[in-house]
Every structure is written in C-alpha cells, then in structure tokens.
C-alpha cells in the first residue's frame, strides 16, 4: 500500500490534520485509528464545553468530534478503524494490524503523528500502601461511567486536580457517588479555573491544595486513604495526616504524550513536554514526519488542538508539494517561568503568516507579563493578570518581525514581573 500522507490517530488532531491536507489538494491520504470509531478521547467526554472558540457554541465532546467526522466523510477521506500502528521505520514504512486485513505494510511520503496522550498511573507517584482494587485513573473511570453505565465506586477521593479529575468529581456526584475531596499536591490546581468553579465549588466538593495521599488502605477493595499536608518541598508534614474512608481513589495526576512510535522511528523528544521537538511547521527531527495535538504537548482545550493540527496538515501538504524549504533555524528558548514552547524551532525562510507560539508557565504569576526577546532585543510584552500552569498560553510572532531582525539566532520567552 502506498499513500502520500498517513495520519496516525483519528482523534480531533488527526481529523483536523486530514481535513486540512485534503483541502490543500492531497488526495492520496489515510487516517489509521485503533478504536472502532473516530473521535479519540472526545468520545468519552460527554460533558459540554467543547468548541467555544472554534464553533462559538458549547458542544459535548462527541458532538464536537462529529463535526469533523462529517467533514472527513464529506471530503471522502479514507480511514481504517480497529487498526493499530505497531511500528514506523525511517523510510516511512508503517506496520499496522487489524483483525480483517491482518498485518498491513504501508509506504508513506509523509506522516502525521496524532496519537494523543495517556494518563499517569499510581506507580509514577510511588504512593505507598496496599495494592487493592478501587484505584484507577480518572479517564478509565470516565470510560466506565460515560460509555458503559458502570460505577467504579461510591465514596470517592480524587488525587490530582487535572481537568479530567475535576470533571469526574462532578460526574461521579451526578451518578450518585459522594466525592469526599480532591487532593492536590501543588499550591494551585493544574486544571482550568472554570472547571474548578463548575465541577467542585458548585457541588461543595473540597479542594485540598498542598495535600497528597500518603497511604492507601484496604486488602481487597480500597477502604480508605491517608492524606497529609505538604511543605514547600512537597514533602508530607507528619502531624497533618488525616484518614478519609473511601472505596475509590481516582487519579488525575498528569497526562503523558503517547510517543512509543515516535521513539521507534527516532523522533527527538522534549524532556519537558514528552512530545516531539518540532519547528514552526510541526515537522519533527525526522524529515517528513509531523506531530500535533496531545501527542505533541498536552492541551487543555480541544480548540487549540484543532488549530494546531489544521496547521500541521497544511504544512504536511506543503512538504509533499516540495514547498517546505530547508534552512537555518532559530531556536526558541523558554526561561524564567516559561516551561516550554511549541514550536521549539522556527525556520524563517518559509514564514508567510504570523507564528503562534504556545507555551506553559511553571508557577502561578499574578500581574506579570510575557516578554519575547529576539536575541537581546525585547520585541513583545504581553501583560497578563494571571498566568497559571493549568492554562496553555500563546503569543503571536508577526511575520514582519523576522524581516525586521534578520539573522536572529535565539528567540527567548520569559515571564517578567511588572
């Protein structure tokens, strides 16, 4: 099998990328998705709040996905479901399997990686205690409740205040469970502000900041957890221990981009995001391989995933048409409170439009500003009332900046207190 473009993953990222490429005239393309339907993680997100930016209305996850699935069908973009990609080689041969066709060997001219992310498990935090049942990730619980109509528990503690945890605290409450607390190690939540208000405050669920679970009790099914306050170094403080009886512990302690395939093909990964290192075309260190969506860096809002992936799809088609010139690249540096940027490099020779740089900060900053430096010259200062690690930020670099500062080597993003 030969394709110009193969898109791995049929979540919002893969769908938007496919639509964009098709619109740019790439006809010989295919989406490979391992689930039995397109839509990715959105299929289990039945709450609303998706698409405020893209469609100016509040959709549920499946509704949002459906708009793109319809578009994919309208454009007659080919896709294979129940098809898992196992391996990619350097010459862009893709090995995938499905029960009907067996092992597929697909040769591609360009590839877009859109595999999404997965949740960190208990072990990643080495929470001590027993290994009973009743402990699962918030996403796994979401799947049981939203897609299978099964309750994973009745008395719940949520560890971690990521968005999925917050949303599941509310969902479990709706379905008849008692959510006793959401426990967060950091002094601030890693979730969106609106989720804290709508999912916790509205239901009187306590959010315990600077707390963590220090012990897990119960031989067979979970019987309770011990939580404790943590000090500035995030170490539990002894006398603050508190036992909370519960039969369920849901973990919302971070998402990790699913880059097993990217590793196999030698794509350079960022130790900060866990996603690929890309340039402003979303091209990875391996020529002709692009990356977008949660596999590139974890997003809060699907709208951003769509925008980013649309752009990745366009750039992949440019690559296929030979329009992505190689050239010197400018490095983007994240310091002073900025944790990372995407892209990590900019190739100035092919800049047509403004470049969106997405990033996250590493702490909560009030009344600060984001400053952008072209080498030593400050070119942009964006005041922010509040900056928080839970909210992805962006700055736009106008294309004429690059003609104004030819030969710039490094672009630096910083948080500056005003």
């Amino acid at each position, binding site marked *: 099998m030969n394709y110009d473009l193969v898109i791995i993953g049929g979540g919002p990222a893969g769908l938007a990328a496919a639509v964009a490429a098709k619109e740019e005239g790439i006809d010989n393309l295919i989406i490979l998705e391992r689930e039995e339907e397109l839509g990715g993680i959105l299929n289990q997100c039945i709450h609303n709040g998706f698409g405020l930016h893209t469609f100016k209305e509040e959709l549920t996850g499946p509704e949002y996905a459906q708009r793109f699935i319809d578009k994919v069908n309208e454009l007659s973009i080919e896709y294979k479901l129940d098809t898992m990609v196992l391996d990619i080689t350097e010459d862009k041969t893709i090995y995938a399997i499905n029960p009907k066709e*067996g092992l597929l060997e697909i040769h591609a001219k360009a590839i877009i990686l859109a595999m999404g992310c997965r949740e960190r*498990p208990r072990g*990643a935090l*080495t929470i001590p*205690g027993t290994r009973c049942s009743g402990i699962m990730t918030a996403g*796994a619980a979401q799947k049981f409740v939203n897609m299978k109509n099964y*309750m*994973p528990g009745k008395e719940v503690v949520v560890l971690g205040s990521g968005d999925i945890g917050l949303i599941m605290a509310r969902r479990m409450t709706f379905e*008849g469970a008692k959510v006793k607390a959401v426990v967060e190690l950091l002094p601030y939540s890693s979730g969106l502000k609106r989720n804290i208000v709508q999912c916790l405050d509205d239901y009187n669920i306590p959010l315990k900041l600077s707390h963590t679970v220090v012990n897990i009790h119960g031989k067979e099914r979970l019987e309770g957890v011990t939580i404790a306050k943590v000090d500035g170094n995030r170490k539990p403080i002894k006398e603050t221990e508190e036992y909370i009886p519960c039969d369920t512990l849901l973990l919302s302690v971070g998402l990790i981009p699913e880059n097993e395939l990217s590793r196999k093909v030698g794509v350079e990964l960022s130790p900060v995001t866990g996603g690929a290192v890309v340039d402003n075309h979303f091209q990875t260190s391996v020529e002709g391989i692009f990356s977008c969506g949660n596999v590139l860096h974890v997003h809060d809002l699907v709208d951003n995933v769509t925008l980013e992936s649309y752009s990745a799809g366009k750039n992949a088609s440019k690559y296929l048409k030979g329009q992505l010139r190689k050239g010197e690249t400018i490095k983007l540096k994240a310091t002073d409170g900025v944790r990372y940027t995407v892209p990590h490099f900019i190739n100035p020779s092919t800049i047509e439009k403004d470049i969106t740089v997405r990033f996250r900060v590493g702490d909560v900053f009030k009344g600060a500003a984001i400053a952008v430096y072209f080498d030593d010259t400050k070119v942009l200062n964006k005041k922010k009332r509040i900056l928080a690690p839970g909210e992805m930020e962006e700055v736009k670099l106008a294309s004429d900046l690059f003609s104004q500062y030819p030969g710039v080597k490094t672009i630096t993003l910083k948080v500056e207190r005003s």
Partner: protein
Amino acid sequence: MYDVVIVGAGVVGCAIAREISRYKLKSIVLEKENDVCCGTSKANSAIVHAGHDALPETLKGKLNAKANLMFDKLAEDLDFHFRRNGSLVLCFDEKDMDKLYELKARGEKNGVPELQIISGDEVRKMEPNVSDQVVAALYAPTGGIVCPFNLTIALAENAHVNGVEFNFNSEVINIKKLEDGFEVKTKDKTIRTKILVNAAGVYGDKLNNMVSKHKFTITPRKGEYNLFDKYVGNLTDKTLFQLPTKLGKGVLVTPTIDGNLLVGPNAVDIEDKEDVSTTREGLDDIMEKASLSVKFLPKGNIITSFSGLRARSEKDDFIIGEAPDVPGFINASSIESPGLTCAPLIGVIVSDIIKEKLNPKLNENFNPKRKGITRFNDLSLEEKKKIIKERPEYGRIVCRCESVTEGEILDAINRPLGAKDLDGIKRRTRAGAGRCQSGFCISRTMELLHSELNIPPTEITKFGKASKILVGTNKESI
C-alpha cells in the same frame, strides 16, 4: 481418599504437583486464593541465583547451584521465559575484598561453576552504567532471570494436564491426623488423603503446628521493590547485587525477563502475614541504596511498586521432609530465597519421598511439555501475518503498552487453569503490566472476562474475593 493433598499453589506447591504427576496418584492442590502464584511467588526478585550466597552446610547451599542448572531444560519443556544474563556482586571498598574472595570460595564449595573476580574497570566494560565507586565484583555467568508467574503457571498447567486437580478459594482450616492419613478441612469440604504436603509459604508454620509437636514459627520478612519502565530496562544487562557490608545486605538492580528494570528489596520483619503494602520509608530506602550501584537511577520512570514476604523461620533454612513425629506429613516450608530457584529441585525431592512411601505406578500418559500462550509481540512480521490470518483475534491489540492482543487474552482465559480475574490475565499475558498499568485496557479486558466466563461486570475482580472493580450501575444509589 486422595493419595496426595498439596496445600499451596505457589511455585513450590506447583513444582511438587508437576513432579508427582509423573506417577499414577490421585492428587489435588488446595489454594486459598483465586489463582496460582498469589503469594510470595508473585512478588520477589525473580532471580535464578547462581548459588554462592548460602552456607554450604545448609539445604539452601546444597540445592541452589544444582537447581539453577535445571532451568534450561525446564524452560524448554514448559515454554516459560528464562535467560542466563549473569550476575555481579559489587564490591565498593578495597577493604572488603577478602569478603568477595570468601564469597567466591563459598560459591565454589556450593558447586557454582565459572565464578570469577573481576576488577572495577572490567565491571564497567561489561556494564557501563555501574558506579565508578565499584572496585571489583564477583561475576557468576550462570545467574539468570525468569518470569516467576510464567514459571509457576507453567508448572501448574502441566501438572493439571497430567492429572493433578486444583481447587481455588479453598483455604485449609483444619487438619486431623487419622490412622491411615489425614482429614483436611476447607470451608466447604472435607477430604481425606494419605499424604499431606505443606507448601503454604508464610503459613507453613500454622499447618505444621496443627499436627506436629516439632513446632516452628515463620516470621514474614518484607521486601519492597520499585519497577521501572522498559525505556530504562537496559540500564544494566546483568543482575547487580551489592556485597553485604556493615550497613546491611544491600539491594539489587536488575533487568527483568520482560525488559523492565527492578530495584529492591529491603528486609523488614513484620507480624501480619497478609501485609504486602509498601511504605514510604521502604521505597526511599531501596532507592537510596540502589543509587550506589549505578551512575544514575532514572527515578522518573517508576511504573509501580510492590512487596513480597520471605517465609523466614528460626531455623534460617528450608524445612523439607516428613515431620519427624507425623508420618505422611511432608513439609516444604520456610522456603525463603533462593526458593524460586530451588523449587524445581524441591519438587523432585518431595516427589521422591512420596514415591518411596506410596510406591506408585508411572503415569504412562505423562507429557513433560507444555506450550505457553503465543506472544504476539515476540513474533516476526511473517509470523504475525500468519497468526492473524488463522486467528483474527490476534489482529486486535487490547493492551497498548505491552502490545497484547485479544487472542492472547482469550487464550489466557480459556486454557487449563485459566485466568478468572484481572491479575490472572496480567500474569499470563502482561496485559495491564505496562507503563499505563491498565488504564487503557481494563474495560476491554473486563468485557472479555464477562463474555468468556459469563461473569457480570460488577462481579469481576482484580484478584478474587472482595477486590471488585465496579460497584454497580450509574445512578443506582440515588
């Protein structure tokens, strides 16, 4: 009337069961848990020790090196994963060199072949990530690693296919000595047997003390571990032990047979024989000690932690053989490390005692071979193509982290002594044993258990008893 009842389906009980299945004997294994390999056999270092540690006059010292050599043939016959990766006992101080030589001499006395003392630089040539503090090491090429679940399950399946019955959720609560044997009571039945084998792990003292005046006590000695992602599984290829010092016995750093990295264990005496919880202090302690062995310990890549209990009696050695005052009651007790390694040989020893006593006929139908579950991930591209064509279920990945297919899970459920719960599937196939620890595959795996065994989803457990995953349907409790 049974000929033989074996109490305990750990590696020792299963090894004995498999050995006696060579004979025409009516025998049964009684296990209190939902599956085989639920006790200490599931939580240990999984090393097939070369045999230099134990003192030559102990049973441990006598059996270890000999048992080690049984593994190549056994792995071939029973199709479990085993590899002789070799082991190194690291010495951190010139002043301790005499102890290293002592260990080598002891090993040689125990019959360990090819032992060598090598310099620090030679060690680092072999294992570049070994710490610069290491001055020398004892190298044992016969040291190996094994999958303890695979080993135990393979022994059990083979025993079962050759005629041994297995009853699960059958805790032995009482034993009565009769004229010609024993009456063994579980909560739902009473059976009689000529011979009773005590392979009850940390509960070995309880069983022995029910019938024998030669009492002993087993104090569980806990050992905790951290298991790391396969990304860092190649930190070392050989098993790295530490030479015991004033500060204690040290911990090991080793690859597992499946390519993860394993660090541990500590040693803490406890009272509760069921307490396999991990502790903050324990996990911190092993990490601190392990960092001595290697240049860099990739702390951010831990995927799970666990602990196991050593069955340690005051004798500080295996207790194998008939209780002196109770003919027909055979102990295979106090089997602490290197019990995993010695289990196949303990099987032979106990089986010989039984043979002597009952003089059974050979089982002409005994088949020494067992074929394991075909692992999709281990196949070549051509083999993958072929198997999906024959069995389309092999074309659907359920566990993404370990690339386990639906075909393998179905096989795990439907084979002899098949899996009945999530841990059973995990131990047979590795589904859920990877970096996401079942976050993705749990719901599909439960669907398969539900459809194959007709267990309602709300009754499916992690490991039997009350370890249910779901508590009901939505809105039920409103």
